């Protein structure tokens, strides 16, 4: 992306250079008018905002993975072939408290559910490992 500074190419003119960088800033959401006629320093804010946006997106993807992992963990009792009465742990009642504001208020049921699901998952993995020598 523009502003890297590591890959400064030799440009025949500043026009060529601006045209080269403009595409990157378009991706970041900058308009033509902002880039060419606005405050030249605005690109710094766009770079910073874009970096934050990427970090947030990364966090969202990670969180989604965590929910999927959690959901699968809660279903693992069903995956145990010899379980007599498999009991599925219900899905979380509330989303994870990512802001940390509700610390300590996580429902005991949910917490217990997560623990139980993880125990099942561990048990299943041990069973598979024992059976297939993993």
């Amino acid at each position, binding site marked *: 992306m523009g502003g890297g500074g590591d890959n400064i190419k030799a440009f025949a003119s500043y026009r060529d250079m601006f045209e080269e960088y403009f595409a990157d800033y378009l991706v970041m959401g900058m308009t033509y008018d902002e880039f*060419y006629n606005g405050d*030249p320093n605005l690109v710094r804010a766009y770079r910073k905002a874009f970096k934050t946006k990427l970090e947030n997106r990364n966090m969202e993807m990670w969180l989604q993975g965590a929910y999927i992992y959690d959901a699968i963990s809660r279903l693992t009792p069903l995956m145990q072939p010899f379980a007599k009465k498999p009991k599925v742990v219900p899905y979380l009642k509330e989303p994870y408290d990512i802001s940390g504001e509700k610390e300590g208020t996580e429902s005991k049921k949910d917490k217990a559910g997560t623990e139980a699901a993880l125990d099942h998952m561990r048990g299943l993995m041990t069973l598979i490992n024992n059976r297939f020598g993993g």
Partner: protein
Amino acid sequence: MALIFTYKDNEYTLEFTRNTVMETERMGFDMDKIDSAPVTSLTLLFRGAFLAHHRTLTIAEVDDILTNIDKEGLLTALGKLYMDAIKPLIENEEHSKNAIKWTVKT
């Protein structure tokens, strides 16, 4: 950063946008020729610096201001304004944070 002054009761703000950098370049200004052609460079740079906020002024009017303005350090100041429109694109924040800081003593 901008260069501000008053002339004949009018306040002028000189600065560059990336668009006016390109226009100044089109007028024939070349940063590499500042040392070899300082007078031409000053004239072109001065004319270009008016484009962002005083586009309606004629070349004759701008040149009249240039004739009457104090030229001490003007070329350096205008060069800095010009580079201010380019620098934010090529800087590397991480590198800038760790770069060796220096000062000029006179």
